[in-house]
């Protein structure tokens, strides 16, 4: 009985979280006439798949989705690959360089993206990376990395040094200790960082808008915006249908790796 208020609160929170998605689904299945009704309903009165067929026939949603998937997977993998050793160094080593690095990571978050977009574009152009997916991956990694570093650094700090020392006593080199002892314990942190990087890249619009110009390389956010016009007017039906489809890969990705998002791995690892 004591848990009833908790369950009610949990249910309310779940409804709150699910509301936009359910409303999106409802809108995607409505006719234009029903969308303009003064008394909107959750369940469409005359459900239609026309919005889905319009969305898929007018825009290359599948191609754009695949490109977004490639960019998001590459960005998140590279972000973690770079952030993992860097965060270990930041967490474990002391000295002036660490302080400078941490300070610079923090400072880099202060600049608004719009401020650096033109210099960034010119750098990419010099590297012949404008209008390419690798160019967008580099940009996404660059902008996800600072926060990923902070996230992972926290996880590394929470791994007791004693575990590495115990491995050393057993004859493990530092690299072996990191690979065999520390890395497995960082799995939840790595998964959280992967998720963060993936979703950031999957949803990113402004850099993609600037970096990509050829229709054959455009990602999903750039494709979705084509259903909107000036002054907030948009084609709600196809937009809702396309947006709904765009959320599915994120949900699948989350469903696959969320099992690794568990805590308590280190409970009792160190006595006292």
């Amino acid at each position, binding site marked *: 009985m004591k848990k009833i208020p908790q369950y009610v609160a949990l249910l309310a929170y779940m409804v709150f979280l699910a509301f936009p998605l359910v409303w999106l689904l409802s809108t995607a299945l409505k006719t234009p006439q029903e969308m303009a009704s003064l008394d909107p309903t959750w369940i469409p009165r005359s459900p239609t798949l026309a919005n889905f067929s319009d969305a898929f026939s007018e825009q290359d949603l599948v191609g754009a989705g695949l490109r977004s998937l490639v960019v998001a997977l590459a960005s998140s993998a590279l972000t973690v690959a770079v952030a993992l*050793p860097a965060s270990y160094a930041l967490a474990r080593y002391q000295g002036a360089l660490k302080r400078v690095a941490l300070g610079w990571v923090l400072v880099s978050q202060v600049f608004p993206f719009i401020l650096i977009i033109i210099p960034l574009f010119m750098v990419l152009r010099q590297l012949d990376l404008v209008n390419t997916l690798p160019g967008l991956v*580099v940009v996404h990694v660059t902008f996800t990395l600072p926060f990923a570093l902070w996230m992972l650094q926290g996880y590394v700090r929470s791994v007791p040094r004693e575990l590495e020392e115990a491995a050393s006593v057993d004859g493990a080199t530092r690299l072996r200790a990191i690979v065999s002892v520390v890395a497995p314990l960082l799995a939840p942190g790595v998964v959280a960082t992967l998720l963060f990087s993936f979703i950031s890249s999957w949803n990113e619009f402004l850099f993609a*808008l600037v970096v990509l110009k*050829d229709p054959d390389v455009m990602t999903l956010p750039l494709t979705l915006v084509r259903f*909107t016009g000036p002054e907030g007017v948009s084609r709600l039906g196809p937009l809702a249908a396309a947006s709904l489809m765009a959320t599915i890969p994120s949900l699948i990705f989350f469903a696959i790796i969320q099992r690794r998002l568990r805590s308590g791995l280190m409970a009792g690892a160190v006595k006292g």
Partner: protein
Amino acid sequence: MRIKSALAAAAVVALAAGCGGSGGDSGSSGTPNEPVKLDFLSLAWQKESVAANKALVEEWNKANPNIQVTYVQGSWDNVNDQLVTSFEGGDAPDVIHDDSPALSGFASKGYLLDLTGKVPAELKADIPQAAWDTVTFDDGKGNQGVYGVPFLQESQVIIANKKLLDAAKVRIPTAGEPWTWDEFAEVSKKLTKGDTFGVAWPMKSPVNKTLNLALNFGGTFFQTGADGKTTVKVGAEEKEVLQRIHDQLYKDKTADTSALGMGTADPLPGFFADKYAMLPVGVYLRQQVAEQAPDGFEWVTLPPLKGTTTEQGAVSQTLSVAADSKHPEEAMKFMAFFLNGPNQAKLAKGDWLLPTSQKAAADPAITTEENGWDVATASAKSLVVAPFLKVNGFDEWKSKVATPVLQEFFANKITLDEAAKRLVEEGNEVLERYQR
């Protein structure tokens, strides 16, 4: 040491992965054996409009194997961020779709090609001078140039519920005999009954709408003195439309105050449910009405209101050529094809807007009575260059001064005199910075 090596290796891997991909450059430079390639950034977004744009590009590409155009669909909300970056980076599309207010800034920075003397005579003659005036700007060095070809314009009309108009037995205005603002106020009173308001004024973005309508009474909101300096002016002419809308909201109570915060299309559900009898909106909203109206709902398009005149301020949608384009002549040839009379009619029909081409304006497709095309197309004759179009600093005045002030005024939080004072004083401070 190993950690440092690992860090360095990770950075190199990331960079190498990024550099590894080959460029997908659309290659607007072509060799003598290859066709010239042009990028065309289009902002068409309505289904019919996108289809019309794509069909025209396809037709061109088929007929001109040596000049191939790539259709790139952009978005109105972000186009200027996208363009500024690509202009600065020297990688702008060859042919650019935008609107005339944006051209002013781009022209003064040298981003766009001056088309003076480059527009084919037939196209030049087909578009009235009033429309060319909307794309004629200073190049930042004191020279006037033409920085785009204007092809679509928007007028403010009234979309009304026919059943309610018939029931109120009001005179249906025509292009030759439009309603005056006084008559409009009287009709609004007759239509306001029970839960029905005569009119809804969606004023989420009030500036362009009120400034364009202010010309009905000669209100220009800006004046340029003998010293060449432009200042804000809010006198009797400018106050007229503001006061009349305010009266409908709070004196006559024929306009619903709850619609004030709405965007242009937001009152449509209320319109279809007989909550609002009339909507003063841009002609393009007819598309949404035609698409979303419930079965059996009858609506009509009514001509622009008349003050001392029916004049309204207009801006144009435009096609321009980037100054850095490697193929400006080919770009101009494509634009001349794309914007000829018959093609402008297709584009106007697709976007539910008014063509600048006089040949297109006579096309039966956009003079039919269906969906109010006859009234909408006839309203083009009321359009004159919006006075704010050539005011340096207008965008900042609009976002920082005029929008909040007009929103407060229409919300009845400040008086018209207070609004006028702030529009002028705060506005002049903004404009001053642009004229030093």
